[in-house]
C-alpha cells in the first residue's frame, strides 16, 4: 500500500468533520464571520432546525467578487493580516469554515461591498455550481442548504430537527450575549424565535436572553486587576436554578465553555446556596490577547489561559465582592405564582364543627373552646415607633404566627422570616469572628494513611499549605498515599479517609478545596441554627426593629443558609393590584 497525498475535496471533508459536525456548528461559524465583518444587525433563518437550510444575513463590510472565490478556498482568510496567530483578535482565524461547509452542503454566498455591485457564487458539495451578479443591500448573505445531504454517514448521526434547533438557539444566544452592541434576529421555519435590538447594555442583553426577571435580581460586576478586567452580571443567590444551564463565560468576546467557570462560581456562591442550586451568571473576561490561547480546539469552544489561577481568582474575588456589596438584597419581587394565591374570601358563615357535623365513628380530639378570638397583640410603646420609614427594610409593625415579622417600608410591605434571618446573622457574625485566626487543628495520635492515586496525591501535596490553614495537616507518604497528621478540631473525629478522597477529587474538578470548607461551614451553620431565634418565639417591637436594622448592614442577609430568601417585599403596586385598584 503506497502513501499518497489526499485530494483537496477529501481534505475538506475531513476538515469538515472537525469544524462542522451538526447544523449548530455551521451556524456558529457563519455568525462569527458576520460579527468579524463588523455587522450591526445579523438576521438568521433556519429551516427544520438547520437541517435543510441555514441563512445568515449581515450588514457588514462585504466581499468583492474575487474575494468570494478566494474565501471558499481552504486556509484563506482576511482575519490574519500579519502572521501573528498569537495576537488574533477576531473570532475566526483558521480559514477553514467556508470551504468545509461548502464541501458537505450547497453553499451560496452573495455579497456586496458598499458602493460596488453584488456578486453571488454557489458551491454544491465542493463543486462550483453557478456564479453571477446579485442584487442585495451592502453586506453578505450566506445560505447553506441540504447540509450533509450527500454524506449519509454523517446525516445518520444528526438528531431530530427539534434538538438541532435547540443547539442552534443556544449558539445564537451565546454569541448574542457576547455582543450586546449587535442586533440579532432568529427565525425558525418562518416564525420569529428571538429578536434583540442593537446597542443594548450587557445586563439588558443577558436578561433578554435568559430571564427577564434577572434585571431586578442581579448585581453588576466590574472588577479590574492589572490588565485583566472582569465584567458581567451575577444573579442573586435567591434567584438560583436547579440546573447549571445559565452560566456563561466570555473571554475577549468569545463564548467559551470551561471547567474553570464551574468551580469558580461554586466557590464564590459556596455558603450562599444549597449544593443542588445553581446561580445565573454571565461573566465577561477581557485580557490581553497574548495571555490567552484560543487555538486549542477547532470549534474554539475551549481556550487556554496562561495564568488560569489568576483568572479563577478574579472570578471568585469579583463575584464575592459583588455579592458582599449586595448586602441584604434578596430575590424580589414576590413570585407571581404566590401573588396568584391571594384570594378573596367569600364572607359566609363557616360551617361549625360539632353540632351540625354528622356523628362519624372517628374519634376526634375535642378542644374546649373558650379561648378568645385571634387578635393582634397590643404592646405599650416604650420607645416611640419611628414614623418615618426611611429604612430599606422598614419599621416593624407586628408579628404573624410568631414566625414572620411584618414591617412597613416606604415602598411597600416587608415580610421577614425571623428564624432564617437571625440564623444568617449569627452565621455571619461567627464568620467575621473566626476570619482572623487559623482553624484550630487536633493532631492525631495515630496519623492516618490514606491511599490515593498519584495525581491526587500530587494535587493535595501542592495545596498542603492552604489545607493546613484550614486545619488539615497532611504530607506525602510514598508515591500513592498521604499521611494525615491533624484534622480540623471542629469536625471532631470524623471520617478522615472520606474527607481526603473527596478533597483530591475536588481539587481535580474545581481546583479548590470546596468540601473541606463546606464541612466546616456546615458545622458553623448548625451552630448558628441552634444559636438563633426560633420560629414560634414572640418578639417585641424593639427586638424586631433591631433585627431589621442588623439585616440591613450585614452582607448576605438576603438569604438563609440554604439559599432561601429571608424576606420578601410586597410593593404598594402589588397591594393595590390585590384590591383591584389598578
Amino acid at each position, binding site marked *: 500500500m503506497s502513501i499518497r497525498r489526499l485530494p483537496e475535496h477529501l481534505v475538506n471533508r475531513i476538515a469538515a468533520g472537525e469544524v462542522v459536525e451538526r447544523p449548530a456548528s455551521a451556524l456558529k461559524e457563519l455568525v462569527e464571520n458576520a460579527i468579524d465583518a463588523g455587522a450591526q444587525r445579523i438576521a438568521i433563518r433556519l429551516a427544520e432546525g438547520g437541517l435543510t437550510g441555514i441563512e445568515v444575513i449581515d450588514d457588514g463590510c462585504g466581499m468583492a467578487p474575487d474575494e468570494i472565490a478566494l474565501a471558499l478556498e481552504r486556509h484563506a482568510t482576511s482575519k490574519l493580516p500579519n502572521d501573528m496567530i498569537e495576537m488574533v483578535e477576531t473570532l475566526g482565524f483558521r480559514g477553514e469554515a467556508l470551504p468545509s461547509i461548502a464541501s458537505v452542503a450547497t453553499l451560496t454566498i452573495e455579497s456586496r461591498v458598499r458602493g460596488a455591485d453584488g456578486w453571488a457564487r454557489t458551491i454544491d458539495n465542493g463543486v462550483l455550481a453557478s456564479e453571477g451578479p446579485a442584487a442585495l443591500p451592502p453586506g453578505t448573505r450566506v445560505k447553506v442548504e441540504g447540509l450533509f445531504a450527500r454524506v449519509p454517514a454523517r446525516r445518520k448521526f444528526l438528531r431530530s430537527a427539534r434538538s438541532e434547533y435547540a443547539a442552534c438557539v443556544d449558539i445564537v444566544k451565546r454569541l448574542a450575549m457576547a455582543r450586546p452592541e449587535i442586533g440579532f434576529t432568529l427565525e425558525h421555519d418562518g416564525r420569529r424565535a428571538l429578536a434583540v435590538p442593537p446597542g443594548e447594555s450587557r445586563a439588558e442583553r443577558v436578561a433578554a436572553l435568559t430571564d427577564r426577571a434577572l434585571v431586578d435580581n442581579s448585581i453588576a460586576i466590574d472588577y479590574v486587576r492589572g490588565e485583566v478586567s472582569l465584567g458581567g452580571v451575577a444573579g442573586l443567590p435567591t434567584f438560583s436554578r436547579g440546573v447549571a444551564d445559565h452560566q456563561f463565560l466570555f473571554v475577549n468576546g468569545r463564548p467559551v465553555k470551561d471547567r474553570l467557570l464551574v468551580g469558580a462560581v461554586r466557590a464564590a456562591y459556596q455558603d450562599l446556596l444549597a449544593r443542588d442550586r445553581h446561580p445565573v451568571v454571565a461573566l465577561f473576561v477581557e485580557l490581553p490577547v497574548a495571555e490567552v490561547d484560543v487555538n486549542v480546539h477547532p470549534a474554539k469552544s475551549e481556550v487556554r489561559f496562561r495564568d488560569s489561577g489568576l483568572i479563577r481568582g478574579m472570578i471568585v474575588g469579583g463575584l464575592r465582592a459583588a455579592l458582599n456589596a449586595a448586602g441584604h438584597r434578596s430575590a424580589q419581587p414576590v413570585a407571581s405564582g404566590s401573588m396568584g394565591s391571594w384570594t378573596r374570601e367569600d364572607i359566609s358563615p363557616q360551617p361549625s364543627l360539632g353540632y351540625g357535623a354528622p356523628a362519624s365513628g372517628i374519634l376526634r380530639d375535642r378542644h374546649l373552646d373558650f379561648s378568645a378570638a385571634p387578635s393582634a397583640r397590643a404592646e405599650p410603646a416604650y420607645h416611640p415607633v419611628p414614623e418615618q420609614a426611611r429604612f430599606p427594610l422598614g419599621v416593624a409593625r407586628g408579628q404573624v404566627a410568631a414566625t414572620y415579622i411584618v414591617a412597613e417600608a416606604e415602598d411597600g410591605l416587608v415580610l421577614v422570616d425571623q428564624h432564617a434571618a437571625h440564623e444568617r446573622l449569627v452565621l455571619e457574625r461567627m464568620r467575621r469572628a473566626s476570619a482572623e485566626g487559623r482553624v*484550630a487543628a487536633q493532631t492525631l495520635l495515630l496519623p492516618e494513611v490514606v491511599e490515593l492515586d498519584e495525581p491526587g496525591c500530587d494535587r493535595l501535596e501542592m495545596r498542603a499549605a492552604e489545607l493546613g490553614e484550614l486545619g488539615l495537616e497532611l504530607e506525602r507518604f510514598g508515591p500513592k498515599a498521604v499521611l494525615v497528621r491533624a484534622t480540623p478540631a471542629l469536625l471532631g*473525629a470524623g471520617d478522615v479517609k472520606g474527607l481526603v478522597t473527596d478533597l483530591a477529587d475536588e481539587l481535580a474538578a474545581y481546583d479548590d478545596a470546596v468540601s473541606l470548607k463546606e464541612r466546616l461551614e456546615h458545622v458553623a451553620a448548625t451552630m448558628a441554627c441552634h444559636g438563633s431565634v426560633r420560629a414560634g418565639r414572640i418578639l417585641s417591637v424593639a427586638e424586631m426593629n433591631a433585627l431589621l436594622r442588623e439585616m440591613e448592614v450585614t452582607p448576605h442577609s438576603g438569604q438563609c443558609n440554604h439559599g432561601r430568601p429571608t424576606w420578601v417585599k410586597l410593593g404598594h403596586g402589588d397591594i393595590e393590584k390585590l384590591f383591584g385598584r389598578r
Partner: protein
Amino acid sequence: MKVTIERATLLKSLSHVQSVVERRNTIPILSNVLIEASTDGQFRMMATDLDLQIVDTVAAQVEIAGATTVPAHTLFDIVRKLPEGSQVSLTAAEGKMLVVAGRARFNLATLPRDDFPMIAEGELPTHFELPSETLKQIIDKTRFAISTEETRYYLNGIFLHVTDDAQPALKAAATDGHRLARVTVSRPEGAIGMPDVIVPRKCIAELRKLLDEVDGTVAVSLSASKVRFDLGTAILTSKLIDGTFPDYSRVIPTANDKLLKLDPKSFMQGVDRVSTIASEKTRAVKMSVENDKITLSVTSPENGTAAEEVSGDYSGPSFDIGFNARYLLDILGQIEGDVVEVHLADAASPTLIRENDKAPALYVLMPMRV
C-alpha cells in the same frame, strides 16, 4: 407455660436484659425477650441484638414449664408500672401471653421461641477470673476514649491483651485517634496465651451496668471471636470486633523530659472554668507552662477571653501548648490521687498523663494546634 414470680425479682431481671434490645429493629423477633421456665423452678430471660446476648436466671414458682417470646420494652414498661410487692403471673398459650398482677391484666402478642436467634459460643478455651472491682477499674478508666467513628470500627471497643514481661500483665487500651487510655493489671491465672481481643462498646456498657450488682469475682471465658462474662445470675456473651487494634505502644512517649506535677482537682476545675468561654465545638485550652506556674487560657472570637493560674511543680523552659478541654477533663476525671504527672515534650508531640509510675492507668493526649 405458667409461672408466678415476685414483681421486684422480675423487674430487676428484666432491667438487666431489656437494655440489650435495640429500640428499633428490622427483624421483629429481636425486639422480644425470650422467657423460659423449667420445672426445677428456674426462670430464664434472654435478649440479643445478634452481636450481644444476655441471659439472666432467677427463681420462680413454675406450674407448667414452657417458653415464649414477648416484646421486651413493652413487658418492662408493664412490670415497672405494676404495684410494688405484687405477685405477677405469666401464662403463655396459643400465641398470646397473659400477664396478671392484682386486678391488672395484659394479653401480649408473642412470637415463636424457635425463631429466637442464639449466639453460638463455640469453644472458649481461655478462662480466667477477675475481681469485679478490677474489671470496673479497667472499664471506667478506658471507656471514655473509645472511638464512636464507625469507619474505624477496630477502635470501637476496649483492646485486651496479655504481656509476658518481667511482671506478666493484662492490659486494656482504648483510643479514638486523639487520645489513648491504658490500664495495666497483673495477669490473672489462666490468661496465659490469651488471644488479643477487642470488646465492643455496647458490651462494655452493659457489662459495666451489671458490675454494680456483683461482688466477688467475674468469670471471663474467651476465644478469638467471642467473649463470655459470667456474673452470677447474668451471663453476657458478645462477639468480638474482628479487626486489628493498632500497635498503640509506639505512640506512648518514653522520652518526654518536661515533667509537670499538679493537683488534679484544682487543675480540672481551672480547665472547666476557663473552657466555659470556649466555642462549643472546638473547646481549645492553651496552657502556658512556666516555672512552678501554669496559666490556662481560652480565647474565643465570639465570647472574649479567660485565664486562670494553677500552681504546679515545674522547672524547665517555658512554653505554650494547646489541648481540647473536653479530652483533658475526661482524663483528669479519672485521676484519684492528689498529684497528677504531666509529661510534656513540645507543643506538637504526644503528652503523657498519669498519677505516678506505679499507677495502673496512663493516658496519652495529642495537643491541639491553636
